[in-house]
């Protein structure tokens, strides 16, 4: 199953559950509070997911390591390499 199909399946399951409660499709005579709670649920979920995404990406950008030491080490090694390669007869 492709990821697209997995998503479609997941979304339609959630959509069906939502429709059952919100529109009382099976005529279960659910209390009115259930319905009131259920109908804005997709919006809540979207907002919650959006907040989670922004928080996650923001946190990861803020904590992205800056490898200053790696850059310094590389610069030093470049000098060393150039000197040694010159000695070995490399013409750049």
């Amino acid at each position, binding site marked *: 199953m492709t990821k697209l199909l997995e998503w479609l399946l997941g979304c339609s399951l959630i959509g069906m559950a939502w429709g059952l409660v919100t529109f009382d499709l099976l005529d279960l005579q659910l209390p009115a509070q259930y319905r009131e709670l259920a109908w804005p649920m997709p919006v809540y979920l979207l907002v919650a997911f959006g907040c989670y995404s922004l928080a996650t990406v923001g946190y990861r950008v803020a904590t992205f390591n800056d490898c200053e030491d*790696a850059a310094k080490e590389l610069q030093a090694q470049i000098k060393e390499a150039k000197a040694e390669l010159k000695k070995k007869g490399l013409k750049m």
Partner: protein
Amino acid sequence: MASRRGNAKTREQSDKYSVLLPTYNERENLPLIVWLLVKYFGESGFNYEIIVIDDGSPDGTLQIAEQLQKIYGADKILLRPRAQKLGLGTAYIHGIKHASGNFVIIMDADLSHHPKFIPQFIEKQKEGGFDLVSGTRYRGDGGVYGWDLRRKLISRGANFISQVLLRPGASDLTGSFRLYKKEVLEKLVEQCVSKGYVFQMEMIVRARQLGYTVGEVPISFVDRVYGESKLGGNEIVSFLKGLLTLFATT
């Protein structure tokens, strides 16, 4: 003492590591990356070869590579040039054909990938028997150098979206510093058709799909020392297209 050092130098002779270096206009970087590779392979004692695949660079990369071959020996530096610039995927196919190792390491020749991590890749592979080991900028001590906030934001954002949509079981999808079992790489390049950034992503996503195991090693990515690094609107659009293609097909 001498015998112990001798053992370290000759350990694991049954395993050989072929490093594929696709190059295009890398005359400044190639000698440096080769020097670093020789240094770290020499210190760790693993058996290796470096395969330079130059795509007809007009700046004379190939002439530099020929000089390096004279310095380090034709058994260590193999030159497998091609007449013109062709895709990365075909460069790997071309390189694998000439690789005598049972493991293949792919990396960029522009010094953004440091050979000091290769012994860690090899240890990691042995530790878990992984089919491929991928370097990751996003985990542990991994990181980048030379990226501004915009670049970091795009990178993290793209990675987050890819993780949500594809759940690939690897943290760095677009990285191109990896170690593969040779037959695994052969199988994967055969199947992967994408270009650019998406190619690396497709490789690791397909690896998961085919049931291969993936290990990860944190790496520091030092953005191009010489030459220009590019990330424009075009790259972003083609990345998104590729991502959606993988989303619908894997």
